[in-house]
């Protein structure tokens, strides 16, 4: 049969082909057929799989609302064209609006999914992922993969910026650049906090964490920040600007990278990032030292991004507080809090408004602490707000030992998130087991303890001060009697009081934030002449300027009002006034009284 069949096939092929060839083909074909079948089967499986996947992807893609797709395409085009205005619109309003509408509780579509919309542009996809993960961190609960991948994505972004052959041509709005640096540090902090909770990790998380390849290590984060600073030569830039060099000279100093706004701003924001990272790690000296060249004033570049402005002052103020430079801390908080008050009307619509307000609230709390330790009358307005918000704690804090919980409460509420520089020993199961058995104090508690120690050392200060205020001179024995303490003990407390009324503070002309001179921070001054205390008090004279400015402003309003109001009929008021006067003699007095009240007000202002 076989033979016949072959013959038959062969016969047919014979018509135009060589017999032998056909045979060969046929033989191969026979073998091949089975193979082909197998192949085909697996092929089908794969294709169906692919098809299914594709279908799912298509479905997922189809599920992306059209408006979102259009947004992404538009966004991509804006980035392609380096159109800063359009990027800002997409970034600041478009993204947030669509988040509210479609992704309030779920992730944005994955980058792979939207890749076709943006020509698979790797840079845009990195930027997209940056937003994607930021959204996950802020709105949802990031899982292990998110944490690792967001780190990888940040590394890719920084690699692209720093390790390309030359400066890249990408341009992004300053707000976004700030957010990139800010978010990078936030995710580092979030990871460190999560990592330090060794007790609540799943098996899978433990394996990944023990794997050695630690993402988000403190070293790598600092590396990125220092690299951005060095690449952009931003310190050199700031110095050159301060020295008043020309644009050309500056260009020469900062090189090809630093000349571009993208690098310059990233470098600049990285300095502020260092401030934050060092604070989180408990190195308050280095935090302020890294700000060496940055000028904290209203003209400095940091004011251009409000979130950055507020955050910087918060960390500077906090670091001052931890350096026990309460006057400097107070001044820092007052400056920025006043600014926030003034900005309030313009910023209510900003998506960062909530964040800024939260930071402001924490600064009011820190202000309350500083003011309790070193009272100043720098700004009555801020002080009043603090009393409104934290009235209870403010009262308690002046009551010695009783006030300690109030200090603790405010500190815990208002301090930044602290992180431990090193993870628990995940790589070593035994060590980890031992680690879990120990009790651990988290970094915030350590810093709190440390801070409270200083508070405790000054506990006697408010009481002693209020006593001294009543006298111009007083024997130490008598004073000890009033306070119901031992005389020697009390003399020692007086030395504490003296030290508490001196502090290191900036006078205004210093360059670095760490510089300062000894300043007196209290009106009350005293000296001990063996066993006699002599007390004097400095008073602040009347302050006219503010009063005049306020009243001039008021005068202008009155003047404008007068000018705009119709002329009164001349006779009528002349008639009514004498009529009132005899009838109600009290009525004529108020003007005089009002006058004294207004001037009396000045006295209390002084």
């Amino acid at each position, binding site marked *: 049969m076989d033979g016949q069949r072959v013959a038959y096939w062969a016969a047919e092929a014979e018509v135009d082909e060589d017999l032998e060839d056909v045979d060969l083909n046929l033989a191969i074909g026979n073998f091949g057929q089975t193979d082909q079948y197998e192949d085909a089967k697996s092929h089908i499986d794969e294709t169906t799989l692919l098809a299914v996947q594709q279908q799912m992807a298509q479905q997922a893609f189809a599920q992306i609302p059209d408006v979102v797709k259009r947004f992404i395409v538009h966004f991509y085009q804006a980035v392609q064209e380096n159109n800063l205005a359009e990027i800002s619109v997409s970034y600041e309003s478009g993204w947030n609006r669509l988040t509210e509408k479609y992704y309030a509780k779920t992730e944005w579509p994955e980058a792979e999914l939207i890749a076709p919309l943006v020509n698979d542009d790797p840079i845009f996809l990195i930027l997209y992922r940056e937003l994607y993960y930021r959204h996950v961190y802020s709105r949802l609960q990031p899982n292990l993969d998110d944490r690792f991948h967001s780190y990888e994505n940040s590394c890719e972004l920084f*690699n692209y910026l720093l390790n390309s052959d030359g400066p890249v041509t990408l341009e992004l709005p300053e707000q976004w650049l700030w957010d990139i640096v800010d978010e990078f540090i936030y995710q580092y902090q979030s990871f460190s906090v999560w990592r330090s909770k060794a007790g609540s990790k799943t098996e899978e998380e433990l394996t990944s964490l023990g794997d050695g390849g630690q993402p988000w290590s403190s070293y790598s984060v600092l590396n990125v920040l220092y690299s951005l600073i060095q690449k952009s030569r931003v310190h050199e830039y700031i110095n050159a600007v301060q020295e008043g060099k020309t644009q050309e000279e500056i260009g020469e100093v900062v090189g090809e990278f630093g000349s571009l706004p993208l690098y310059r701003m990233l470098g600049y924001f990285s300095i502020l990032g260092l401030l934050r990272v060092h604070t989180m790690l408990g190195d308050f000296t280095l935090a302020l030292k890294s700000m060496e060249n940055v000028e904290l004033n209203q003209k400095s570049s940091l004011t251009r991004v409000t979130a950055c402005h507020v955050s910087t002052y918060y960390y500077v103020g906090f670091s001052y507080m931890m350096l026990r430079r309460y006057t400097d801390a107070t001044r820092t908080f007052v400056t920025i809090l006043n600014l926030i008050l003034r900005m309030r009307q313009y910023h209510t619509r900003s998506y960062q408004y909530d964040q800024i307000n939260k930071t402001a609230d924490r600064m009011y709390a820190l202000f309350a602490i500083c003011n309790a330790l070193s009272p100043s009358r720098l700004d009555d307005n801020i002080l009043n707000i603090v009393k409104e918000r934290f009235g209870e704690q403010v009262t308690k804090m002046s009551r010695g030992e009783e006030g300690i919980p109030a200090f603790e409460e405010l500190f815990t509420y208002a301090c930044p998130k602290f992180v431990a520089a090193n993870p628990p020993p995940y790589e070593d199961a035994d060590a980890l087991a031992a680690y879990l058995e120990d009790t651990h*104090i988290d970094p915030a508690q350590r810093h709190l303890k440390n801070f409270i120690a*200083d508070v405790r050392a000054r506990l006697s200060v408010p009481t002693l001060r209020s006593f001294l205020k009543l006298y111009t001179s007083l024997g130490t024995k008598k004073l000890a009697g009033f306070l119901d303490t031992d005389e020697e003990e009390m*003399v020692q407390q007086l030395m504490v009081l003296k030290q508490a009324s001196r502090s*290191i503070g900036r006078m205004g002309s210093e360059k670095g934030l760490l510089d300062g001179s000894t300043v007196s921070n209290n009106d009350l001054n005293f000296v*001990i002449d063996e066993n006699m205390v002599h007390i004097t008090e400095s008073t602040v004279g009347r302050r*006219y300027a503010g009063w005049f400015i306020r009243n001039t402003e008021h005068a202008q309003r009155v003047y404008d009002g007068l000018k705009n109001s119709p002329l009164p009929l001349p006779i009528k008021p002349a008639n009514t006034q004498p009529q009132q006067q005899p009838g109600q003699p009290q009525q004529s007095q108020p003007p005089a009284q009002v006058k004294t009240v207004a001037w009396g007000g000045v006295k209390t202002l002084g």
Partner: protein
Amino acid sequence: MPGPTSSWVCPPERTQIIENLVSGVGESKQTHLKGIRVVYCGSLDRYNPSNIGILEDYLYQQTRSEEYDCLANLAILKLYQFNPTLYNSDVVIHILIKALTSAPFPDFYLCVSLLDERPSSANADEPDPLPSILPQLQQLYALLQQCRFPAFWTLYLSEEYRVLREEYTVESVSFEDSVRKVVVRAVKAAFTKIGVKRLSSYFNLEETASEAFVSKLGWSIEDGVVIVPPNPDNQIQSTVVQETIALPRTFTSLLRILPHIPADGRVIELVKVITHAARTA
């Protein structure tokens, strides 16, 4: 006189090498991060663990003399913080002892802030002395902060603190004198005159030794009373702080606020308006 912080930020004894380490002036190099893809890395000397030796030697030099460089010592603690394997408890304790007497700077707190929690030492044969010494140092520091000098000496010289004295502070040259300097600082600010007896209890010295100590400072003694020379902190004077505002500024702000009132001409009208404003305010 330069501000007190300048020698704190950069003491005169600091060498250029140390300055480079502390201020982090370093060559930027391309390096690979552990396990992670390459990030362009300014490998700053400050974070380079191999520099620990230089800084530790510098600390040794400080303990052998009266020099002190807080920022350099903080740099050591920073390296320990990031590289727990480098950790050396003796070095940490010496840093803390140095920081103990650095009034008016809060160096002690700053140093303690950088002591991250350590994993419990794996080496049980040689227990880490820090956990037992640290609370003692904190206690002593609290007493200094509270100017409770006699209590400081009692505690410091107690049996409980023998290890601290015999193994650590003994190494630190003139530790006791540096405590006395803290006393001098506190006394100088608060007193114009102080009894020798009281001062001696602060110094933990015999009265004659105290007298010798203060004469070296140039203070004079009369009938058992030490006269503290006048200085900005023990001179009291009731003052009235007056607001000083440069005239141009007030004027320009006035002019800005009141653009339509000529400044020279109708001053009387302006006064009237202000008076009216005061009444209605």
